[in-house]
């Protein structure tokens, strides 16, 4: 299959995704990431501590009741599955492991900050750029401002670390 032998122009890829996202918007809602991961976190902890303990935490019975029947989980799982299939078909699947301790530390801090940021704002980068802003929600403009400034600060710090 030729499709898996050459790379795709990101403009073409994102244009196709955008058109599909309009259909998803009609069916259930715009593409978001973060809600699915939140639900995965809730389901995982619920499987460890049980439903009774979980219900003692207000967030998990007021905001997110852990359930597998939550469509956003399947967007996230689908992205991982699609990438796996695509990487296997294009022979681009191979294990990559960060080599340096500093990389592990940066990735750990980065992951934690992303998780805290999503929960604080109740949106992620995808719903900021490809959900709230196209829906012209003022929260989207605030989120874009925060994300761009945050990325600038992160880039500045990262550059300093690399130069050091």
């Amino acid at each position, binding site marked *: 299959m030729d499709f898996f032998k050459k790379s795709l122009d990101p403009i073409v890829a994102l244009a196709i995704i955008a058109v599909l996202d309009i259909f998803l918007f009609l069916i259930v809602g715009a593409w978001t990431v973060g809600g699915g991961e939140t639900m995965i976190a809730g389901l995982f902890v619920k499987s460890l501590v049980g439903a009774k303990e979980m219900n003692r935490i207000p967030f998990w019975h007021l905001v997110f009741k852990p359930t597998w029947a939550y469509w956003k989980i399947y967007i996230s799982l689908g992205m991982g599955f699609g990438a796996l299939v695509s990487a296997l078909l294009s022979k681009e699947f191979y294990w990559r492991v960060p080599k340096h301790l500093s990389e592990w530390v940066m990735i750990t801090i980065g992951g934690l900050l992303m998780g805290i940021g999503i929960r604080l704002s109740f949106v*992620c980068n995808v719903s900021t750029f490809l959900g709230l802003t196209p*829906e012209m929600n003022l929260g989207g403009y605030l989120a874009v401002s925060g994300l761009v400034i945050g990325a600038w600060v*992160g880039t500045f710090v990262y550059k300093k670390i690399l130069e050091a």
Partner: protein
Amino acid sequence: MITVYGQCAAAFVFGTTVGVLVQRSRWCNTAALRDAMLFKSYRNTKALLVAMMILTVGFTGMISIGNGNPMRFDVGINQFIGLFLFGIGMVFAGACTVSSWVKTGEGNIGALWALLFLIVGLFLSSLVWSFSYWPLAGPTMTGHANAAGLQFGWADALTLQRDTGVPAIVFGVIQTGALYALYRRILRRERATLAAEAQERPMSSERAARPAAGLADAVVNPASSARDALSTLGD
């Protein structure tokens, strides 16, 4: 009306398609911001802007004819603070939420690690929310300004249409025009960079005749070393 299982199936098909397209195109939201700031490289930024233009017309068009499911989402300071932290985090992790899933699918253990800690961060934040009940979450948003919760109420294309009587698509076209102006500006900047590089080319061929100059460049221009280091993360 689509059933819950239908929603989950549609979401999985959409997610799988996104996974394939992002894997084949190497698109990354982190790179769309980081590379533009660090290397003046706009490959991912242009794709993001094109998607935003299509979606703005699509979403506001659907809202104009009474279709679609816009997010019922109040505007709050928390969105600025949260995404500020997220922006720092995605640069540190070398991947955003989408590329973390895609790179995990490609066998990148670093991306899987980032996802695991993203989930840890989400859970820890849920505990903090349970003490503070701030910021207001979806079910507790009223749609009205709430000074104590640092919320400004609900304001999007749908409320604009309702309050002004002007179809949402009109506002959507204006926003698309602004995004297109930004896109054109990036194209102009890229052309100017290419022209400057073409002028410098004779100097580069002179430099190639002196191999030691390459090493000196790496010392003088840390950005080139930085790009090499960042590329090891697999963007």
